[in-house]
């Protein structure tokens, strides 16, 4: 029983060290397990495909650096699909880091795939503003006033043609609201502030942890389609045909799932054996 007792009281750092080694090994030597495309991701892809060419899409990049491994590939792939369909994007952020990270992604996509894209014509970033639902409501009233009339770099929005086409966040000017968030604000806030009053359909991308929170809104039709976590991002990359970090991360997820399951089973075996030992 000494082994099981030692195992159950194992120093967590041993566990964490083993995790680190497994992740490193799988990243260096990928297994390449096949992956089925989920219906929700496919719905997201189809929804974007059906947006009329040349339309304006409002992108809420409310995620932080912590969500980058999951939401980052989703938004990056979305930018690629959107620009393939000649959509024009305006990005806002209710998370401090989201606006900067979104800007970097746009510049990365521009240099890699679409060198002809022009800031202010095809893409506009109005930057971070606090207040979540309050900010969303203000955008629905008047974009200029809500943003203070300046973009992420502090330049006047009046100088950009894209800004003049969207006086307020409303279905008359914007085809879709693409909502990429870490956890909050939940989609019901954007739906109440913008989606319902402005008649704008909402699509979203979320980390895996927030998926259960989003499913009721998805089933109720408040969100039209959702990309669930890193798995969804990998499926989306596969659908768009641009394999990236989410696809590479799938083997890591698989190995971690296997590792944790083995540990949990062993912990339970140890628990049962030591419990019997203690009671006898």
């Amino acid at each position: 029983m000494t082994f099981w007792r030692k195992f159950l009281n194992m120093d967590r750092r041993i566990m964490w060290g083993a995790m680190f080694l497994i992740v490193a090994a799988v990243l260096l030597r990928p297994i390449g397990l096949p992956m089925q495309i989920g219906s929700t991701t496919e719905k997201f892809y189809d929804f974007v495909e059906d947006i009329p060419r040349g339309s304006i899409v409002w992108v809420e990049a409310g995620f932080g650096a912590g969500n980058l491994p999951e939401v980052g590939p989703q938004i990056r792939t979305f930018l690629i699909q959107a620009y393939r369909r000649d959509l024009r994007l305006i990005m806002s952020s209710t998370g401090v880091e989201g606006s900067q990270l979104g800007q970097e992604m746009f510049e990365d996509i521009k240099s890699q795939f679409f060198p002809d894209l022009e800031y202010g014509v095809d893409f506009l970033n109005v930057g971070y503003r606090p207040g979540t639902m309050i900010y969303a409501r203000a955008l629905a009233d008047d974009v200029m006033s809500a943003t203070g009339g300046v973009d992420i770099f502090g330049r006047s929005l009046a100088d950009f043609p894209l800004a003049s086409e969207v006086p307020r966040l409303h279905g008359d000017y914007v085809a879709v609201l693409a909502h990429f968030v870490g956890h909050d604000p939940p989609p019901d806030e954007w739906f109440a502030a913008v989606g319902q009053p402005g008649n704008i359909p909402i699509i979203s991308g979320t980390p895996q942890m927030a998926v259960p929170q989003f499913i009721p809104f998805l089933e109720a039709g408040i969100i039209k389609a959702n990309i669930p976590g890193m798995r969804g991002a990998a499926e989306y990359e596969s659908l768009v045909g641009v394999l990236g970090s989410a696809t590479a991360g799938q083997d890591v997820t698989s190995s971690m799932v296997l590792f944790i399951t083995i540990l949990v089973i062993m912990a339970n075996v140890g628990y049962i054996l030591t419990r019997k030992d203690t009671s006898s």
Partner: protein
Amino acid sequence: MLVADQPVLGIFARDLFPAFVLAAAVAVAVFFMIQRARSGASIPLIRRLPGIEALEEAIGRSTEMGKPVHYIPGLGDIRDPMTIASFAVLSFVSRLTASYDVRLICTNRNPVVYAIAEEVIRQSYLEAGRPDSFNPDDVRFMSDAQFAYCANVVGMLVRERPAAQILYGNFWAESMIIIEQGALIGSIQIGATAQVHQMPWFVACCDYALLGDEMYAASAYLSKEPVMTGTVVGQDIGKYICFVLILLGVIMSTVVGSNDHFLTRWLQ
């Protein structure tokens, strides 16, 4: 037939009219139960909430061990109902820590919440007759950034090693780190949240958990006043209204064969 953009009955905003009707129905139920309680009529009791009952045990344990109690009123701002609900419990906890003469450390992420938490604790110490025991340095604003706050809390847990940790409010991913660190230092942990994606962690990792509307009922439960209990009973009548609506929706969707019927159209 309702005409788009025309005010309903000439005064109500058209898009939020169904929400207004439902809110008004629940409000009427709450008022009715408050009046019943005031008139001395019998009001059903709130069922036992082990998480709230355990507060005293946790603070007692801290007193015995001579270690502080750590309280987090969540990471939400002051508009968050979970934060508001947290203050009633913070008030109760701080009165207990004042009377047991045990240190209470309250860490905050939001500056407005911090200012209110300090006032709540100060008042509780005053009411408990121990204003001198109140240490303003133990009510701390850590950082407005989620993970900077989290790192700060983890550091504090390692240094101060509180014997009890109470997480009551709105939490996100940082809660897992804080709870697990609490477990590592051997704290008894009581968690309460209505944030659905954090509930599984609270259930699995805290010693006691209060979920969803339980956390809102705490102030009425602690006060034991019939009027406050009446508001919780009124809230339960709201649940019956929702239940009836769900049942009607299921029946109508089954009969019509789709979700396109009077009820869904009206609610939208």
